[in-house]
């Protein structure tokens, strides 16, 4: 199950895409105190489609983006412009419009590897609950892909994302 996308500026290609997957059957029920393991893979490609195809060549299961909770962009990438990636994500039927958008002050890869939920065993649940903290705190916001895209297309609004 794919949980998270991370986008950085590539070294050899245009973008560096980091994928985070949960291990199948990693419900965390066997050892309640342990955090369920996840797998992180990074590839460089010209676009999202190429990156997904590349990952599909060495991952035993087909990558499915239906359960993708969060898309992370590095600040450097965001400064260069992320409209191409946003359009690609919007055009993919698998990606949900309520996927959250995060801009990371570090690289997206660093952000993903450093996420260690302390009060949650399941990473998937952590990613789902994380943006909802905007319901009880004013320090963050719950920004969905569809909101970001609508504002990107709008003549009167600027898109905003969660800064981490």
């Amino acid at each position, binding site marked *: 199950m794919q949980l998270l996308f991370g986008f950085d500026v590539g070294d050899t290609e245009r973008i560096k895409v980091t994928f985070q997957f949960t291990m199948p059957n990693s419900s965390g029920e066997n050892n309640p105190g342990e955090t369920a393991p996840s797998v992180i893979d990074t590839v460089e490609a010209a676009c999202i489609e190429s990156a997904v195809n590349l990952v599909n060549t060495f991952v035993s299961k087909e990558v499915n983006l239906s359960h993708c909770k969060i898309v992370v962009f590095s600040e450097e990438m965001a400064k260069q412009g992320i409209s191409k990636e946003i359009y690609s994500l*919007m*055009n993919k*039927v698998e990606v*949900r*419009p*309520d996927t959250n958008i995060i801009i990371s002050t570090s690289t997206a890869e660093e952000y993903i590897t450093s996420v260690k939920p302390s009060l949650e065993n399941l990473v998937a649940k952590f990613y*789902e609950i994380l943006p*909802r903290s905007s319901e009880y705190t004013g320090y963050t916001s719950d920004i969905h892909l*569809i909101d970001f*895209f*609508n504002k990107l*297309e*709008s003549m009167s609004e600027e898109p905003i994302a969660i800064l981490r």
Partner: protein
Amino acid sequence: MADKKIGNFEAIALILTVIVNHVVLNLPKNIIASSSSSSIINVLFISIIAVLIGYFVCKLLERFPKLDILDIANFLGGKWLKILTGILFLGYFLFTVSVVLRSFSEGLKIIFFPRSPVAAIMILFLITIIITNKIGFQAIVRSNLFMMPIFIFTILFIFFANVGNFTVQRMLPLLGNGAFTTFFSGLSNLFAFGGFAYLYFLPPYLKDDKGLKKITFASIIISGICLLFSVATLLFLSPNSVITEEVFPLYLASRNIEFGRFFQRLDAVFLLIWIISLTAYLSISFSFATRVFQKLLNFEYTKWYTALFCLFIFGFALIPKNMYELIFVENVIYQYVVLILIFGISLALLVFANIKYNLLEKKKGAVSIDKASI
């Protein structure tokens, strides 16, 4: 014929299938593409025009109780005009079934079955059509009546569940690309009311002969409401550039619905309901096609050639080579076919038949037209 009679509610549901299914496919998208922010005003405008046309059609059909458009064509121009009208309507029903079948199957393929051939999905629908038509017209119409409230509920539900995501300012400027585009060239959006085609064939099937007016107005008003809600949903939800690019825009709207963490991804339920709705629509259109064919050739039974018709539809539906060609057929050709045949040729036929009736009435004093005389 007695066993094929249908009630008023069944008839209303039958006409509504057209709008419901086209709303799910590309109808609101086309209206938004042509009228932009004035789409809501345009829908209100074309709905009023459709009510007026409906009133006009009812008045014209009053002289010919229990007769469908083929009988009226026979009265006006004899056997050859009946055959010509029959061929046009037969072509229309088969064309509609083929295009809608292909379009919906392509959408399903993109969403759920990216590796399955589109022909396999179409075959499943065609098998269903053959089975429903073997069961009979009554069964199709009653099932459709049973499911219609659910079909309409999905459209209204998507609107109300998305209210929180709406940007109502998207309906500004009110006249969109201008008054000319909204009210004059926007008239072409009348093709949304393609359900009129069934209206011309309904009189012989109605239990209540005087119910045609009620059926016409009820179906047009409910169709208008469905169209209004679906157009409003898409217009308020996303920018026009997004709506006009989507395969099933209403599906896109349904994906935004969530109630807390527990009720998410309701779109699969909507798609299941729309598949049932599409099956009902295809079965009804197919049933009318076989009935027109039967009437043209005076066949006693329809059941034996339904499979042949399905093969024809299957072949015709596979003609568009890609989505671009399919969208062109669906958006442009279908639009002109409806406008020319349903609102042009058929209305002209009814007007001339009424003129002939009046002339004969003046000549002979009184004319009694019934099936036997025709």
